């Protein structure tokens, strides 16, 4: 373990943006009330403020008078290997970086981003949970953490094309829109690929998939490593730029959208001519402009609720589009959970948590908050626009033996396309 590397990363991350927010924290502990992992387990160390503690200590020890005094008189100690191991379990196992905590912080501190910075330090020091590190390694070598190699990708796409009888353009020259799927969709929800294709074809979009930019998932971003994040982003963006597309569409994947839409610009040069958007935004645009027509009331039986994903809704801003669509498809059946929209409770599986086997018990515990929320609405169907959430919901449904139907927004739209 290389503790010094973590320390150096923390110091490097600490500009005015980080420092001023660390200085603003009063240690009131209110953020804990927003954290699904703290709520579900009551473990004080899972409070967002405590997850950031390592970064604060590094900042104070290196940059402030009081921090140096604390170190000198023994109130604080140098960051140790043991600290790194402990924080690794707090920030990787018990945090989905959903950033709900920032909404209840009386000071408005952007805790999610600060926790991501803690992850960055731990990644540099090599204190990433084994499962996550292995997935990153797999993505480096095979191009996907879920074993979606070139051959698997080609096979799956061929199978979807045949079985769903849908046209899927691949490496089409002159395409304006490049769609990049997540391996979760390709491996676990292939019906989503067909749905994306049906919707884009119906809209008359000049689009394509790429055999080079084929994985939107970015485990380097989960890990917090800048170099791995950049490596995986470049695989997509270099190809998008080489093809000269105008638009890059991220399908139902949350953190990949966060990485591409908000982070990539600060890690590399991206031309203004390339628009990066999420399929949820695109669906809203198609419906508003009339490029696709939906059968009104196509899903109007029972009760349907929508799960807001942290990276697509709260951090991505695509909050209204799903409502707009569900109000057409399910005018009577659609019910909101409480709290919802930007204040929604996270599913508990994002941020890489679902990939860490050791985190399973707390992941299920956090999901119980979601079960509670859904049960209160009386809904029998839960819709979402994130495949990672969908994986958590499908897994949670099985684990808790729930009688729910889990659906993806794009799939509902595809199923309700008017002829």
């Amino acid at each position, binding site marked *: 373990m290389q503790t010094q590397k973590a320390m150096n990363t923390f110091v490097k991350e600490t500009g005015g943006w980080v420092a*001023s927010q660390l200085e603003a924290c009063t240690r009131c502990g209110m953020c804990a009330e927003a954290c699904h992992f703290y709520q579900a387990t009551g473990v004080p160390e899972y409070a967002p403020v405590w997850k950031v503690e390592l970064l604060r200590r590094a900042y104070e020890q290196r940059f402030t008078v009081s921090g140096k005094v604390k170190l000198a008189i023994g109130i604080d100690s140098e960051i140790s290997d043991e600290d790194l191991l402990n924080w690794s379990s707090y920030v990787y196992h018990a945090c989905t970086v959903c950033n709900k905590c920032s909404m209840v912080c009386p000071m408005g501190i952007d805790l999610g981003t600060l926790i991501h910075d803690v992850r960055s330090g731990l990644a540099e020091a090599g204190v990433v949970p084994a499962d996550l590190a292995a997935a990153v390694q797999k993505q480096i070598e095979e191009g996907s953490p879920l074993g979606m190699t070139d051959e698997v990708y080609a096979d799956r796409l061929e199978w979807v094309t045949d079985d769903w009888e849908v046209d899927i353009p691949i490496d089409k020259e002159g395409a304006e829109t490049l769609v990049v799927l997540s391996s979760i969709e390709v491996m676990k929800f292939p019906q989503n690929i067909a749905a994306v294709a049906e919707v884009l074809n119906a809209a008359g979009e000049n689009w394509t998939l790429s055999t080079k930019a084929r994985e939107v998932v970015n485990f380097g971003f989960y890990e917090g490593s800048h170099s791995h994040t950049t490596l995986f982003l470049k695989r997509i963006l270099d190809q998008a730029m080489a093809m000269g597309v105008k638009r890059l569409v991220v399908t139902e994947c949350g953190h990949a959208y966060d990485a591409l839409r908000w982070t990539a610009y600060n890690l590399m040069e991206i031309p203004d001519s390339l628009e990066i958007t999420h399929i949820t935004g695109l669906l809203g645009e198609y419906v508003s402009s009339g490029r696709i027509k939906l059968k009104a009331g196509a899903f109007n039986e029972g009760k349907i609720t929508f799960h807001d994903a942290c990276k697509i809704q709260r951090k991505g801003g695509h909050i209204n589009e799903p409502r707009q669509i569900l109000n057409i498809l399910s005018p009577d059946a659609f019910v909101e959970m409480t709290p919802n929209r930007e204040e929604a409770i996270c599913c508990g599986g994002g941020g890489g948590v679902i990939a860490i086997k050791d985190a399973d018990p707390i992941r299920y515990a956090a999901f119980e908050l979601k079960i509670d929320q859904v049960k209160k609405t009386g809904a029998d169907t839960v819709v979402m626009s994130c495949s990672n959430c969908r994986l958590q919901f499908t897994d949670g449904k099985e684990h808790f033996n729930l009688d729910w139907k889990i659906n993806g927004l794009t799939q509902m739209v595809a199923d309700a396309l008017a002829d």
Partner: protein
Amino acid sequence: MNWTTFLHFTRGPLFQVSLLIFVGGMAYRLVRVVLLGWKGDKAPAKGSKLAGVAKTYLKGFLIFPFIPWVKRTFNRNPIMYLAGGLFHLGLFAAILLGTPHMLVWKSLLGFGWPTLPLPIVDWLAAASIAAMIALLFYRRTNSLLKLLTGPAETLNWLLVFLPMVTGYIMTHHLFFQYEVLFSLHMLSVDVLLIWIPLSRISHFMFYFFSRTIHGVEFGKRGVTP
């Protein structure tokens, strides 16, 4: 040295020195943080950053403290919410709208303003003191707050509590001779002024940074902060 000379010292030279340390110390803290550098954000915004900032201040200043259900933290953490809010309300009412304090501001700034009647300030100060005691008790019993509380947090509490309680007793002419209480009040204020730049009580300055950042982050994503 008798109490009268001690009072002259604590409200005269010592107060002035403390004030200088306070202002200088806070300026140092501010400059130190600002000079750490600010990386620009190159991601194209989806919504208005300015609107986000405006909304978050509106919520943070006006709605959040008075309409607790807006953030739904009230149900989960009513003690921190109520006691924390009451403490700040009483504190600012006393140091800004209490007549004796306004006169101090007037002597420093050269102008004054209307103040609240004494009984109102007095009740708010009493509520503030009660809230502080509740907060200390809560810090000592809640498992998360115990984890977050070190010697610095306890000292913060004590150094804010002393001026509040001496001020309150002084207003009511209780227990001690007036000069004694006044001296102790001024001494505790002087110590607090020196302590603030070294402590987290400085959050009142950095609040404006974190709140603005919050507004920018949510605003650029087109999300209500």
